[in-house]
């Protein structure tokens, strides 16, 4: 589906990895379609998003961001010697992101929030389910299916930076309070090429592809639940 003259340097990946990528793209499109219907994000699409909505969103995101670095670290230790190359990548990823929540807290304060309130916040029901699922999967031997989770989380990072952040700035009139969201748009190309390499590395058969795709679907569903819970009660 491309007429892109810039894509001359072709990334070559195997047949199973290609099939995985096609399915993952569809999981992502489904996910974005569903996100457009989540109340807090619909406000953003409709141009009715207020400062208070942003604070509520951050309040609910923080716990997931902290837990996020935990499941990635946990999964690193679950890869055995046969997957030591994958383990190295995962460790690098965990190191990159494990203090992200500090930036999120600063944004919350810049948006008029109280630091103690966000630090003391409980995980919402969706965050609870998502965290439970990811920690369970990350604790199993060689959890290659978590590439599906990375796909969704990376995609969200890109969406937060290139879609949410601009809309939030515009609709709330806040200045310098979306650094966490924007930060996730950096090094996108780098992350993508690493993801292609990892897919190519682990997608050795259809069964692995199916596991990765299912994991992406579960994470997408639970992440949506987390965002739906933002405005529930």
């Amino acid at each position, binding site marked *: *589906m491309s007429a892109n003259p810039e894509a001359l340097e072709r*990334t070559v990946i195997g047949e199973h990895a290609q099939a995985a990528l096609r399915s993952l793209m569809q999981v992502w499109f489904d996910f974005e379609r569903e996100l457009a219907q989540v109340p807090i994000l619909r406000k953003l699409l409709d141009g009715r998003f207020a400062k208070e909505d942003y604070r509520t969103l951050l309040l609910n995101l923080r716990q997931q961001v902290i837990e996020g670095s935990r499941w990635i670290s946990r999964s690193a230790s679950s890869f055995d010697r046969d997957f030591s190359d994958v383990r190295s990548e995962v460790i690098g990823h965990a190191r990159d992101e494990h203090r992200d929540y500090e930036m999120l807290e600063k944004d919350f304060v810049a948006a008029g929030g109280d630091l103690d309130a966000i630090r003391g916040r409980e995980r919402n029901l969706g965050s609870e389910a998502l965290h439970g699922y990811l920690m369970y999967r990350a604790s199993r031997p060689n959890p290659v299916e978590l590439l599906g989770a990375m796909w969704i989380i990376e995609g969200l990072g890109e969406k937060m930076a290139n879609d949410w952040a601009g809309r939030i700035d515009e609709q709330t009139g806040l200045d310098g309070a979306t650094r966490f969201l924007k930060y996730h748009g950096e090094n996108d190309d780098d992350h993508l090429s690493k993801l292609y390499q990892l897919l190519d590395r682990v997608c050795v058969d259809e069964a692995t592809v199916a596991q990765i795709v299912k994991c992406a679907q579960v994470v997408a569903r639970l992440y949506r639940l987390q965002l739906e819970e933002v405005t529930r009660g």
Partner: protein
Amino acid sequence: MNAYITATGAHLPGPPINNDEIENVLGLVDGKPSRLKKRILKANGIKTRHYALNGGHETTDSVPGMGAKAARQALSASHVDTHDIRMLSCATTQGDFVAPGFASLMQAELGIPRVEIHTTHGICSSSLMAVKAAANTIRLGEQPNALVVASELASRLFKHTRYEAAGGGKVIDFNAEFLRWMLSDGAGALLVESTPSTRSARIDWIRSFSHADAYPLCMSIGGTRDNDDARTWQDFPTYAEAEAAGALLIRQDVKLLDDVVKMGIDGALRLIDEGAFNPATLDHMLCHYSSHHFRSKIFEMLDVAGASIAEHKWYTNLYERGNTGCASIFIMLDEFLRTHDLEPGETILCMVPESGRFNTAYMHLTMVENP
């Protein structure tokens, strides 16, 4: 039973208008040149277009008038006479009359007796819906032929006076001005028959996927600029008040355009999964969209995923003929078939992403030769 496109026609009113001449035709809002024009034109890449308006902002043709010229061109390349047409299936975004349907007016213009008529209502993808109704009627054996006409006269919405009546330059934002530099006028027609002529395009399938349940309005006419005002144009005491509130301006929520492209790719991936087409063996791709959207990361990703259609297979005449809404895909197909000597067996995928509220339509054709 099969349905074949046996002849095509197109009509573009008046001379080609280049980018520097647009405001001579559409006029200057508040007497001042647009500050956004250059940026928007650079993004959509359109170099010339046609308007059924003269320099005095007077309409020089009508929606059925242009449609009839395209239809006659198609019929002149066929063995079918106007009075032999059995079904007339028509599409336009905004006809001359609010009612009745466009097909009634098209029938009157062409003078076809006792014809079965069908009008589709929508924006860019409505022309493929009109082809689908025609093709299915023929496949069912209910009619032996159908004339499909798509015609657009959008320029009337872009006259400077429209913007001035809605508050002028002070209140006209990017979203309200975007389509002024994008859309223009024209018509296209396809003759669909149950038997192929010398060289015809068999309609293999037409499919569409709509996402209005999930996404908000992206391109529309009828609502106000105020997101909290749920009124549409007919809810105002007078049309003058509706116009003053901006409810008769055509708007595009440009931030949502990437999502429209994504949903278009989503549909294509579904069709690939179903085996409806194979991107590797497809011969030609005709897509109703500005090329700058194809420079996004998603297209690189499709390349990596082995789902891309090679660059040399893409054809468009959007940059010379303009974006004529639902007529575009017919005008594109007409010029493509006239300028390419296609062999039997060659395949064409037409793709029309409609930003309105996220509908993308696809039509797959295979060239056949009548033995």
